[in-house]
């Protein structure tokens, strides 16, 4: 690996960067490109995030066994292909449904370990979750539980607003 990997110019989801490195840096939010001072730059959220994780010596965030690594990869891919900004209402619904099903018997996206997939999915879903009604949050109960867990994971939430979840169920016999 290169010496002095300190990035020069970065366009990446700021919150994630702040999660790995402090003090937080301020970047314009744009196409994710990571330009280091030697060698070609890196392109793509998933690629850059994985790169930074290795730089920060937090490889456990990428999973340790082959299976875990593949699962993390899968959810990172899901994150960048499906959960990316301006999705329609139907897409959002599908995403929440998929995730809700997946999370039914899991603590984290990759099962029992907290990984990069959780972090990036959290950032990707935040704008969706803040707009959900109480009823929808309840409908996607597993997603809500997971999201609430991740947002309280030390260091993850950063500047993002705390999404409120209600403990009592309101709509169990929802219409």
């Amino acid at each position, binding site marked *: 690996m290169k010496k002095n990997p300190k990035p020069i110019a970065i366009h990446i989801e700021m919150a994630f960067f702040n999660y790995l490195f402090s003090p937080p840096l301020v970047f314009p939010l744009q196409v994710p490109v990571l330009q280091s001072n030697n060698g070609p730059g890196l392109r793509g959220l998933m690629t850059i995030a994985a790169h930074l994780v290795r730089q920060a010596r937090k490889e456990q965030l990428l999973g340790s066994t*082959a299976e875990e690594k593949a699962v993390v990869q899968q959810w990172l*891919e899901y994150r960048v292909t499906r959960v990316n900004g301006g999705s329609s209402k139907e897409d959002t619904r599908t995403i929440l449904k998929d995730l809700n099903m997946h999370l039914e018997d899991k603590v984290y996206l990759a099962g029992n370990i907290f990984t990069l997939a959780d972090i990036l999915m959290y950032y990707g879903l935040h704008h969706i979750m803040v707009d959900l009604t109480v009823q929808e949050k309840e409908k996607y109960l597993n997603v809500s539980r997971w999201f609430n867990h991740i947002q309280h994971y030390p260091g993850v939430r950063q500047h993002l607003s705390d999404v409120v979840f209600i403990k009592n169920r309101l709509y169990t016999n929802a219409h």
Partner: protein
Amino acid sequence: MRLRVPPGAPAALKVLAAAAAAPAPVRPHLGGPAERPQTLAPELELRLELDSGTVLFSPNAICQYFYLCRGEEPTDLTTQWLEWEATELQPAVAAALYLRLVQGRAGPEALGLLQPLLAHLEQHLARSGTSHLAGDAASVADVVVWGSLFPVLQDQTSLPGELQVLRSWFGAVSALEPCRAAAALLPEALRELRAHLAQHPPHLPGPPREPQVRPRPGGEGGAQVGTAPLTGCPQQDEESPERALTDDDIAAAVEIWARGPAALPPPREPRTPVLPVEGERNVLITSALPYVNNVPHLGNIIGCVLSADTFARYSRLRGWNTLFVCGTDEYGTATETRALQEGLSPRQLCDRYHALHADIYAWFGISFDHFGRTTTPQQTSIAQDIFQRLLARGFLLQDTLEQLRCERCGRYLADRFVEGTCPSCGYGEARGDQCDRCGKLINAVELQNPQCKLCRGTPVVTPTQHLFLDLPKLEGRLEAWLERTWAAGEWTANARHITRTWLRDGLKPRCITRDLTWGTPVPLDGFRDKVSAPPAPRCPCWALPAGLTCSGRSHSPQVFYVWFDAPIGYLSITANYTEHWERWWKNPQQVELYNFMAKDNVPFHSVVFPCSLLGADDNYTLVNHLIATEYLNYEDGKFSKSRGVGVFGDMAKDTGIPADVWRFYLLYLRPEGQDSAFCWADLMLKNNSELLNNLGNFINRAGMFVCKFFGGTVPAMALTAEDQRLLARVTLEMRQYHQLMERVRLRDALRCVLGISRHGNQYIQVNEPWKRIKGDERDRQRAGTVTGVAVNLAAALAALLQPFVPGVSAAIQAQLCIPPERCGLGPGLTCTLPAGHRVGTVSPLFQKLELEQVEALRQRFGGGQAKEPPPASAPPPAPNTPTAPGDPKVIQELTEQVAQQGNLVRQLKAAQAEKAQVDAQVAKLLELKRQLALAEGRSPEVPKGKRKK
């Protein structure tokens, strides 16, 4: 490990190639073309099931997994190619294949968006000087990119000639053994792929395929409830009463529309008193009598009076002959305790609280025909009559009751005078009659560590003589009656369940007397002569019938136990309303009785009181429909008067939120079938999304169009097929509304109303009368029809809303100048405002609730207030009671407080205090500023840019 590869999956090739490259090759399970996909989501079909149970569904992750098994760790470069392939290459390949295979285009132009990506690959390979994408050896990146490109590039002619390096890379990868093997496994790849693409057309870049028609105002907030029409793809997973309209539906709806006001039930002449009428549907509605000694909280209100009121209003609207009675339950130990605490006589206490209750219910718009009380002479005579009849028919027993007696206070500690540990659940503050935590009924002597509530001394168990209602003897009659009633009546599931549990556990004799003074006296005078020598004055055992003996121990005055006494209140309150009360209460042939209550009250209404009436055997009207709610919680916990948590009836009006918004939200939340919770944020959301954006918006627009475009006169309407479909749709919804209301499913019925309003919003949005009015003659006529239908729909909504939000309903009817005889509720959408009808001034019905306002209210009612008294000089914030402007002293005080509070907030922020703490102080600051503005006579400005989306 099991690899499933369905035919035609675009990613099949790369997955098969990667599988072939794995150290222990996996035999794929290839589905034939005949094999139907097992799941509905086609993208989930291709999958790798690992032995651990984990399922990988992403083709790239599957490829990655096989390479990880070979010990090849991902690098930045391979990850980047995989990401690029997933986000950019795949969609472009799908689009290009669609153009070629399905649409039949050929040549380089069919490559479309793929061209720049191919150029990117060419450039990378040329510039890096390596033979493969991530170095000189083939990696997962090569297999993945190759697999995607193969269907496009296998026909070499489609590859532009100038991409030489790419061409040789493609050739090299194709020659790799795993790739050759994979390609050989899929001989029919292209044909299958064509079929796949035809079924799942890719998202082509550019403008969306079909413009989304979305009702702008109503659909916001995403609270899709039930009947909302969902645009876009069909929603298989959304339960929706939307069914395809049949020609019959449309014909019926058009017929109802054309009948006009004639389709409405004739309005009833108001009569006082309301008495049953032969040949009519006579509906008698009671709401559980609220206990007088406390202020009701929102849960009490929705649990009985508001639910009963909504149904009573509906019942009247249907033209049924309806009597709705309620009153305060005033006798009993709780009142006595409370009176002692407040230093009043029980009567004084009841007078005060009865007025308080009456005020609260009046504010909420509860339409009692009579709101009475149980401490009346009628109560005494009716209760004593029932008692005598029970006694005469042998349904009363005498027995000794172990009772707690506090020697220090010199009194028997009946139920609520004693507290202790619950024998069932160990709750430390169980009351003598019931445990608040587990809800079990308790016999006071069973309490562990009992304490006298007045002096905190330890009471001792003392036997006393009491009378018991012999429930086991009445069980047979009760069961026969229940069987008949349940077959025909509307009983909520919880009511049936609780009743069944009571019967299953077996009925036991229940004590009906208490050693108290504040109650209906037990009348035994008629038997006085049967006892030889009264042991002491006022001992009830003076007059026991033969066979019953007095132990001589109980010599204090006795009254009826409240559970025996209180339900008789329904009768006595009616007797206070009319001397002909027996025409309601001894007339089961003509009267249908609805009891509304929360579930804790069920046994008294379904078992005990019916047994009293069955035993008294005087042709009483027994409950036909027992409607019980579950509990309403407050935010995350329970309402608690002592901890100051929750909103209580008398505070609701101080919030500045109109009574109808409270009614709406409580009914929207009505704990029907399941507990629910009041939540401030949700209140704001529902107010702003449902009331303001959906309902208010539609009704306001419909009225405004008539005013603005047609000078306030309803225009002529020429219905098209589309309008008829709307009529049919709304009529179907209304039919469902009626079914739900008749079954007292108020919450669901309210959702129906909101659904109808959504239909209206969508109708306006699609037809755009504001544009058509500027068009040619035909467009203007169309604008007229749409406006006319919309305003008639608004009129129908006014009627549909009347049971829920009567004030809003009246406001709509006043704005649209609907005459009273046309305010009824028809079976479907009918033309009640014909062309030429003049409407009045239309104005907004609802106000937006602001986050700051709601947050301040949440803080105020959240429970912290007990610890933190408001500053002495600042009046409690009450948004609708502004301080009289101009008082310089007040202004100065407030200015100082604003400055102080501002400093506090700055300090907290500087010290990086917790967000919740800062928010609370900011809310206070805003409120102080608002008061200051009011005091100075300015209109308080809403702080901008602080709102979260």
